[in-house]
């Protein structure tokens, strides 16, 4: 179910402030954030983020066609290392 359009994008207020500032000062230092639920708005494009995945921070560089996705989509929370190899006895 998609989010109602009349509500607009959701971005955590704190993160929004930092994005605003980064864009104003042209600061490309990665922004550390836990706010995986924040949607990527056009203002995010070109910025670097470090999105928490529950364990550490995943670097995410935002490009134009990521707009509309959420930050968390780019920082997987699970890591599949593969099954144990099939051993011959």
């Amino acid at each position, binding site marked *: 179910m998609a989010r109602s359009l009349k509500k607009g994008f959701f971005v955590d207020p704190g993160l929004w402030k930092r994005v605003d500032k980064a864009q104003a000062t042209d600061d490309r230092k990665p922004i550390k954030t836990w706010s995986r639920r924040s949607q990527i708005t056009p203002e995010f494009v070109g910025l670097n983020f470090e999105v928490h995945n529950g364990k550490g921070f995943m670097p995410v560089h935002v490009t134009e066609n*990521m707009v509309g996705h959420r930050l968390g989509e780019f920082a*997987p929370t699970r890591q599949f290392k593969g099954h*144990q190899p099939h051993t011959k006895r």
Partner: protein
Amino acid sequence: MPRILGVDIPANKKIPFSLRYIYGIGPTVSDKLVRMAGIDPDRRAHTLTEEELNKISELVVAEGHLVEGDLRREIAGNLKRLQAIQCYRGIRHRRGLPVRGQRTKCNARTRKGKRKTVGVQKKS
């Protein structure tokens, strides 16, 4: 066999049903097209005149329905975009696993395909 929209050749079924053989046209669109073209839905596809066939293909374009190659290309493009931006959905598509959060411990066979055995054989 009548040809419509390039490659497609529906059979000698009733028109609303034979139109559904076109990729991108299902029951709803098919019924709508027949209604809009003012064709009796009980007629068989082979009884359609050239004119009526043209009318249907014009309607498909006019109503903005993507069909056949264009539709396939659009879908492939969407998948490609998801995979290119490395998002969760893209990764799931690439690995051939369910995309929308379904369980994968069991089932998920549509996406995963035929069962392949993995795992350890215990040493005895």
